[in-house]
């Protein structure tokens, strides 16, 4: 049973070069990590020859002339991997996805279809090359031998039956441990083989098997079998992904949202029916629209020219619980599109759903009643459409002295939260020292003009809120705080609690001075 393996050397680089083929002849380095601590993750042969090594920092490689630096793109790597799978699946349905850069396929019975094995191997390499992937391909009688050969020899290699040990023998021992550098057992074995002076697979293959098993156990024997090309196993076939996608190509471009909603409704019903037939639901809907680029609108033409208007328009809806209700989906999509219109006529629509298991029909018996998920989501989406997405959800207080140090979290159903929220949640607690009477916060704070005497505010005036105007009768403070000095957005402020004489009586406010900008703001009023 012949097998082929296709291997993409330096996949992260090749994935990037697929979109920038003009860089093929240059030294390309792929960096990973967050600035300012980016490091070299992968490089092509040109860069390797220029002295670039994995783990070097950005600054170090920047000093080398003629290097092209790119940041690692997992998306592009996924795309390259998908392309690789497409390539092999067009030859054989029996495919094992070994690693992002390595795929093995079963060639049994394909000779009658595609010709002799060397031709299949060449065709595979050619097909991959058409997909902008320079691969090495090896064909052998078992998957492991094919894999070792593909990783060890460049170009196309066909290993005839019974010649496995001879051919593999030329390969260095590192091939056996490729991709397993972090495994402690592998590390030990590498060291042992080095001590023994075993540098090539032929040397490992030549060791007496029984003696080897006495020393290195099963793992040693397995490695020797690999080195001799004697392993035999069946492939672990790649399961085709469950693909829930619907698409419509339009004869006439759509401009209005209403007909779009009609089409979306049809597609959603189809999708929901398909999901339902497999007892699945979804938490994520992806809508991808192809737009007409030649749209006769001066502004849009400008935007196209500036590269701002996109040909593809994409929106993703994420819902905290799995649901399967096409009407809810439609409403949510409508709200989302209203808030984020595509901006150009639509020529093509793709809608896909990420399948998940549906949630149990009923909540716990003793849980407090909560609104129906679908309704809650719709309500939230409606609110978000009005106030903005980053202003809806539940507050999560951050552990900081910074006033208003919080972030918004999406509402989560109680049973989905990782841990029940006891009232002792650390982040939501205020320091008891800070407890004051109720403070009604002004959002946004009101900018005011303040007169200061001997460092204390004496008079306050506001253009926006007429009532905040008058002599400051009494002021407590300043309450000073500052922090995050190591970040670019460090802050420093003084707070005052002030009493201002007003018509109906005395009003109490919290007055704040931003010490970095010098601005005075009223942040709220005390009850």
């Amino acid at each position, binding site marked *: 049973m012949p097998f082929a393996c296709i291997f993409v050397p330096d996949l992260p680089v090749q994935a990037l070069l697929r979109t920038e083929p003009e860089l093929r002849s240059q030294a390309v380095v792929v960096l990973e990590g967050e600035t*300012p*601590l980016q490091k070299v993750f992968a490089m092509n042969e040109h860069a390797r020859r220029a002295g670039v090594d994995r783990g070097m*920092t950005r600054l170090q490689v920047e000093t080398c002339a003629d290097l092209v630096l790119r940041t690692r793109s997992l998306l592009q790597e996924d795309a390259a991997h998908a392309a690789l799978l497409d390539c092999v699946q067009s030859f054989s349905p029996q495919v094992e996805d070994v690693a992002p850069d390595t795929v093995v396929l079963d060639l049994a019975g394909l000779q009658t279809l595609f010709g002799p094995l060397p031709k299949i191997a060449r065709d595979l390499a050619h097909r991959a090359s058409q997909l902008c992937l320079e691969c090495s391909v090896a064909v052998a009688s078992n998957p492991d031998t094919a894999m070792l050969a593909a990783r060890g020899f460049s170009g196309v290699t066909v290993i005839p039956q019974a010649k496995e040990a001879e051919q593999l023998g030329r390969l260095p021992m590192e091939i056996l441990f490729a991709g397993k550098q972090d495994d402690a057992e592998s590390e030990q074995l590498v060291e042992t083989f080095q001590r023994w002076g075993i540098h090539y697979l032929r040397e490992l293959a030549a060791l007496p098997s029984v003696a080897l098993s006495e*020393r290195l156990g099963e793992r040693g024997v397995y490695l020797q079998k690999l080195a001799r090309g004697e392993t035999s196993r069946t492939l672990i076939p790649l399961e085709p992904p469950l693909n829930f996608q619907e698409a419509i190509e339009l004869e006439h471009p759509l401009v209005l949202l209403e007909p779009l909603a009609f089409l979306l409704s049809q597609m959603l019903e189809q999708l929901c029916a398909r999901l339902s037939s497999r007892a699945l639901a979804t938490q994520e809907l992806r809508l991808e629209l192809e737009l007409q680029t030649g749209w006769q609108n001066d502004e849009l033409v400008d935007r196209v020219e500036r590269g701002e208007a996109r040909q593809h328009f994409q929106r993703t809806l994420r819902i905290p619980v799995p649901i399967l209700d096409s009407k809810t989906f439609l409403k949510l999509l409508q709200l989302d599109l209203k808030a984020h219109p595509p901006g150009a006529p639509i020529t093509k629509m793709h809608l896909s759903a990420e399948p998940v298991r549906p949630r149990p029909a009923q909540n716990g018996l003793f849980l407090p009643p909560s609104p129906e998920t679908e309704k809650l989501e719709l309500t939230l989406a409606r609110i978000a459409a009005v106030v903005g997405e980053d202003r809806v959800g539940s507050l999560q207080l951050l552990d900081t002295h910074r006033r208003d140090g919080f972030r918004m979290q999406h509402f989560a159903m109680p049973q989905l939260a990782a841990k029940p929220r006891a009232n002792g949640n650390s982040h939501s*607690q205020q*320091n*008891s020292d800070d407890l004051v009477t109720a403070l009604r916060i002004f959002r946004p704070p009101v900018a005011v003009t303040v007169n200061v005497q001997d460092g204390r505010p004496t008079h306050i005036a506001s253009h926006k809120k007429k009532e905040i105007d008058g002599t400051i009768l009494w002021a407590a403070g300043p*309450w*000073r*705080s500052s922090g995050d000095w190591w970040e670019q957005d460090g802050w420093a402020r003084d707070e005052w609690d002030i009493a201002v004489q007003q018509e109906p009586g005395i009003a109490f406010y919290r007055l704040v001075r931003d010490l970095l900008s010098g601005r005075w703001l009223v942040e709220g009023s005390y009850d």
Partner: protein
Amino acid sequence: MYIELHSRSAFSFLEGASLPEKLIDTCADLDMPAMALLDRDGVYGAPRFHMAAAKAGIKAHIGAEITFEPFSPLILSHSCSRLHQQDESKDLPQQYAKKAGTPRGLKSTQNDNAFCIPLLVSSRVGYQNLCRLITKMKLRETRKGEGMAREEELQEHAAGLVCLTGGDDGPLANALKYGGIECAKEIVGHLAGIFGPQNVYVELQRHFHRGQEARNRAAMAIARSLHLPLLATNGVCYATSRERELCDVFTAIRSHCTLATAGRLLARNSERFLKSFAEMQVLFADVPEAIANTLELSARLEFTLKDLGYQFPKYPVPEGETMMLFLRERTWEGFQQRYGRASADLQVRARRQIERELKLIEKLDLPGYFLIVWDLVRFCRAEKILVQGRGSAANSAVCYSLGITAVDPVGMELLFERFLSEQRGEMPDIDLDLPSGDQRERVIQYLYKRYGERGAAMTANVITYRSRMAGREMGKALGFDPETLDKVSAAVSTWEYRDQNDTFDHRFRDAGLDLNHPRLRKYFELCVAVQDLPRHLGQHSGGMVICQGQLDSVVPLEPASMPGRVVVQWDKEDCADLGIIKVDLLGLGMMAVLEDSIQLIRNHHQEEVDLAHLPANDADVYSTLQKADTIGMFQIESRAQMSCLPRLQAKTFYDIVVQVAIIRPGPIVGQMVNPYLQRRQGREAVTYAHPSLEPVLKRTLGVPLFQEQLLRIAMVVANFSGGEAEELRRAMGFKRSEKRMREIEAKLRAGMEQNGISREAQEQIVLSITSFALYGFPESHAASFALIAYASAYLKCHYLAAFTAALLNNQPMGFYRPATIVKDAQRHGLKVLPIDVTRSEWNCTLELQSAVSAQHSAKSAGRSPLVESKIGNRHSTLALRLGLRYARGLREEAAQALVRQRNLAQFASIRDLVHRVPELRKDELQTLAEIGALNAIGNGGFPLHRRDALWQVERAVRLSGPLLDGLPEPDTTSPLRPMDAEERLVADFRSTGMTVGPHPMAYHRARMHAKGIRKASDLRSIPNGQHLRIGGCVIARQRPGTAKGFVFLSLEDETGVANAIIHPDLFQQNRLLVSSEQFLMVEGILQNQDNVISVKAERILPLEVTRARTTSHDFY
């Protein structure tokens, strides 16, 4: 006026961000007449605070913040019950409880309800109480840096102390938090009961916090109701607000988190800086009495560290005798031994000197000190521990007579005032050199035993932030990943010389970090700011302080990391500044080498070597020194020393004294080296700046080389007394004060003027004194070292095998790596045998070899016939067997178990070894097999090679089950091919750091020859100025601070060591190559000046020789 009475320095270790000196400077800027330092759980920063304050004319109050366990519930009433119920804090949100309830420095394992009481010392009794209180709490804990005091201890030691109610982590705030105002009132009332109402001040702090203001209102109410005074403080943690950043970083380090995750553990604002009267007056405008009380309290605090009350212990003498009388008797007894056979003239001079010294010792009331050191030396002699006094003590004839030192100060005309002077009012300092290791430990334990656990202690060693630690910890706080931190640490250069490119800035760039990025810029700033701030307390290697009575009433004691050791909270400088006498018991590697050598010689040559009576003018020693063949010899083995030895051509012992002293920053910076050598070689006339200096400088040919000479110059030309001259040296010393220097210089010039010395000569003299006093070597010290240097040279010349074995057994020490020492010994004809489990002990040993094989090895090593005959005649039958200690990763207990089993019966096979020595781990066995240490095992008589052994080890360590375990299994050959020479080299260097086989360069000589690379041994015969190439393994890289950026490389090949000098520009071009490459080829011009040979590099290239990881000794 306002006085800050609650401040913390960086000596609160990660809880304060300014040095005491910085606090005092700021205090002086603010015109504050006094200030108190209250470091956390100790008085670590007090001496420096006291000294700085004394200079600035500020009164330094001393105190400490003491951490307490919660007070007993039996004493306090029901309202405070929550304070004692630890579990109650669980009611609080977990994070809040941890953050708010735990005082800053307390570990999570400690009580959450613990609090800190700030205590100020008002009298000496109070100080003694504070020290005892701290000692009790510290010594109770087994782990360093922890411990809490108890209420009963506070009651016992409250006298003479003034209590404040503290800030955020004080007892008042703690009680308010957990028990409310009633409880707080009760706690404060309880404190008033312990200290007396007049000694408790209710503390108010205002850092612009709302919560703090609520506490202040409660505090004022409590103070009113209990009739206690209020006191304003600022709870200072740093001198200026800018240092808040560092304080935040320290908080993150202490809490083992990053700045980003520290959250509210960090300070709310930057207000804990030293504030002026005006600022505090505004802050406390509503309670002016709180400010006024700071003056009142300051006036009450009478105690300063001047009033320490330290006394040196009395030496027990027989009844009817005084210590002085006893000392006199011992001295004159010693005189008979030391000077009994001396010339009449010397005897007279010595007698006169001893009388003079004894008088001064009596006057300064120091006989006890001398007797205690004498007693210590006597103990060493009785225990056969080598001991030798050094340093300025060697200037004393009394010390010489008592056997403390080995150099005759009268015969050598050394200056006594350098050791002890009446004017200086300082305690003498005696350093004793002892063999490092167990022997020194025995002497230390003797002191503990004799003076009690609380009567003697080691001095501390304050570990401060240096480049590497700063880079690592600041980066960690900023959340950098470990890999980046490693890079930064590795990039921190430790070259002694720093050029303008060698800044922090460049080091960051070397690590691949871009300083234009704001975050990295902040990192950089923090690294710079934290330099020299204390990180934690260590233990000084040898300084011991002893006290009459209880040392714990003079300075707090705490446990050291080493079990059984107690350490004081001050370092040796602090102890000296406060007049505490210390004895330095210094472990000197070479003393251990000498001791071990003597033992080996006794065992293998059946000869007894007495270091005190070595042949004085051994021709071999001087001939070796003149050839600069000094690898392994004490103090004269460095490259710089070697480059001087052939020019100095030592012929007498005094020449060695000069040799030891001349390669020092003092003579080098003062440009004394060349004039001296020129004059010595007769190329320059011997002249004196003034004729009156001739007697002083005659011995050193008119060039001042020793500190004593400078003192004498001052005495001769400016009529200084001995004490004044020593004062001058100190003024020019490390802690230079411009003002003091100017004063003394004026005095010096006035004296010279009076003696009619010309202006020109005056300038010359002042220049030599100022440039020299800082780094010069005392002659007495040089003489003590020269004795050891001579002994080491003598042993190396006459007992090479024993000396080399001892040297290898006491590594690390000296200038060279063991690999170089072994190669040097081999070149001198010593056969060095590899590690062998059937022969090797833990240490390197000597083995008898047949004379024929020794001769053969000598010839193959290519040594000169002269050395061959000398060494061959005597010791050709002795070879050195490397010890198991050189097998990397092999633990001593496993090695000792192996030796024990072998002594019972030889190992039949590797399996037998594994079976009988279960202590050996798999990795240890692999290492032994890899270096060939198992090759000699085996039955059947067939030899194993290293890979056979590796093959067997792998089998033997796998358990075969109880049934088969007992069956003997012979070793068999393996299917593995033997290691080739290169593989053996790699294995040797990886697992022993050296090879006993040929030098790596020897394998490539033909190739090197083809490249035109000359052997090191050839250089001697090549004329000066010739263009050539040298190459070899880099064994030392140096960039000395005195060499203006030049780099010196030592390249070793199979014939010896060649030196290369690299110009700073060339170094810049080849920085990475020079700093990291193992084998180098240097092309340049040969310089041969008076047999000092080096190559002035013009081009540097890497050499491909071996993959073995050789190491070099760098960055001196």
